[in-house]
């Protein structure tokens, strides 16, 4: 039986083999292994002998939950990655190991994502995803206080950000590998996943609401003390900003455009429309293109954070009125 018979659509986040260059693969593997290594030590301390059964069954849960889908319109359907839900319910370290196992077994058993490319897929969905999700979750909750509504808003934000950041990381890996020009793949991946992320956010909120009602003790409430919590907030924000900082460098030939313009004047005409897809990504008024992109990236990240805080404040007021 094909995996696609059961799982509606292969996620565009699972990179197959052959798409990443050796250099990118090595960097991804090193970062993934560091993340997994730290997570292994941390979960052993936190879960002890319950580690294997709890994480194993919950990894199976993430896998099975990815089957759940809902109709968006016509034949398309939204479904679920689960990194944010896992990070919120299990804590970031256990979530990293759970997601790592899920992604590894998807690749081994169903060829959903490549075997060598696992380094990149684990980095995007099992390391960066949970860290960023947990950081934004803690951040929004710290700003909002400990209420039911704020947990749900934080859950939505965390889920959305985790999907978009994973997509951006994926686009950058493809860009650095010379597989897909970053000027096209980054806006395309980020755009598609900004929509997919909404579905992920809604499902995560639905799941959180149910767990909050029936087993509130399971929702990571006050498990981590505030200082440690703040570290996650900064960590999540830092990864989001570092990714935007790196994005303009992701072209393997940063001066390629200029050289082409000189060597073959007529190509310039052909190139231009492709790069006009992203005028919004370049900040007006800054002469250096790379600097402008970086500025745009940072401003964008801050705006997303601002919107999250604003939404949260709105929610809080409504709850006080009610």
């Amino acid at each position, binding site marked *: 039986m094909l995996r696609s018979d059961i799982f509606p659509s292969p996620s565009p986040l699972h990179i197959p083999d052959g798409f990443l260059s050796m250099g990118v693969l090595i960097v991804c593997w090193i970062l993934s292994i560091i993340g997994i290594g730290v997570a292994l030590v941390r979960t052993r301390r936190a879960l002890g002998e319950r580690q294997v059964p709890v994480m*194993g069954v919950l990894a199976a849960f993430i896998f099975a939950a990815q089957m759940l889908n809902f109709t968006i319109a*016509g034949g398309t359907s939204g479904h679920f990655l689960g990194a944010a*839900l896992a990070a919120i319910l299990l804590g970031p370290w256990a979530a990293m190991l759970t997601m790592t196992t899920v992604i590894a077994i998807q690749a081994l058993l169903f060829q959903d994502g490549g075997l060598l490319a696992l380094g990149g897929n684990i980095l995007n969905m099992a390391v960066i995803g949970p860290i960023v999700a947990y950081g934004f979750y803690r951040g929004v909750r710290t700003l909002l206080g400990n209420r039911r509504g704020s947990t749900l808003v934080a859950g939505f934000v965390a889920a959305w950000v985790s999907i978009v950041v994973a997509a951006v990381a994926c686009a950058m890996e493809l860009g650095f590998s010379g597989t897909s020009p970053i000027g096209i793949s980054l806006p395309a991946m980020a755009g598609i996943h900004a929509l997919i992320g909404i579905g992920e956010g809604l499902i995560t909120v639905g799941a959180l609401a149910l767990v909050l009602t029936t087993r509130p003790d399971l929702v990571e409430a006050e498990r981590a003390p505030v200082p440690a919590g703040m570290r996650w907030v900064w960590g999540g924000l830092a990864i989001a900003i570092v990714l935007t900082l790196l994005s303009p460098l992701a072209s393997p030939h940063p001066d390629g455009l200029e050289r082409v313009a000189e060597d073959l004047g007529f190509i310039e005409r052909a190139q231009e429309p492709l790069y006009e897809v992203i005028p919004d990504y370049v900040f007006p008024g800054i002469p250096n293109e790379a600097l402008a992109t970086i500025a745009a990236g940072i401003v964008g990240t801050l705006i997303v954070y601002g919107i999250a805080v604003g939404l949260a404040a709105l929610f809080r007021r409504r709850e006080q009125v009610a």
Partner: protein
Amino acid sequence: MHLHALDTYQPGESPVHRLDPRVKLVLTVLFILTAALTPDRAWLIFGLLEALILAAILASQVGLGLVQKRSALALPFLLAALTVVFARPGDMGEGRILPLPGTPWAVSEAGIGRFLSIVARSYLSVQAAVLLAATTPFPDLLWGMRALKVPRLLVAVGGFLYRYLFVLADEARRMMQAREARSAVPSNGRGGRSIAWRARVTGAMAGSLFLRAYERSERIWAAMVARGYDGEVRVLSIPTLRPMDWRAGIGWGLTLTVILIAAYGLYK
């Protein structure tokens, strides 16, 4: 319907099935590595690698059609790479540029070569991975990974995932069946009420699936402790490699190395 059919293993008695899982794992990764390191546009080498994997598929008797059908799953991702066809800045020096009549875009010869090389690498790799999964029972893969020094905890979690995947996937399927029984699906294919409402219902399903999984894991843990579990995962002794495994491993490993050296000799 039970989801045991989800298992991708195809039982068989071929030499590929009988090969030690450690050797198969290492050779699969080596094959994918060779494909990844082969330079762009090394068509002869890609052809040789395809011949090798086809020979292995035929020897395994799992069926050529089955492997190709499963391998096609990776193809949609190629859309992401299609963009390199359009005049790629770095490779402009070599090859011709063909403007597409009627559009402002141009296609570069180097870009097409690069795209087809990515297609070749990706398809070669996925065939090897399909063959591995089709000829090796998953528990064997697990102890193979354990023997190859994958962290013990990850392998143990992977084992649990595999054991309970089918249980929880059945549960998820029952929940979806129940949802359909409660709310008939309109014939126009669109669900009822708003998207947000549908997403919330799905979210609630994910939530209750989580609770059932969590509570199940608590019961499993209690049962394991009752049987003397102390946090250590112990495995049965791992068999030593047979001469046949050594021969296959070294033979294929050397072949792949020679192919890779030839690739660099011929194309660089």
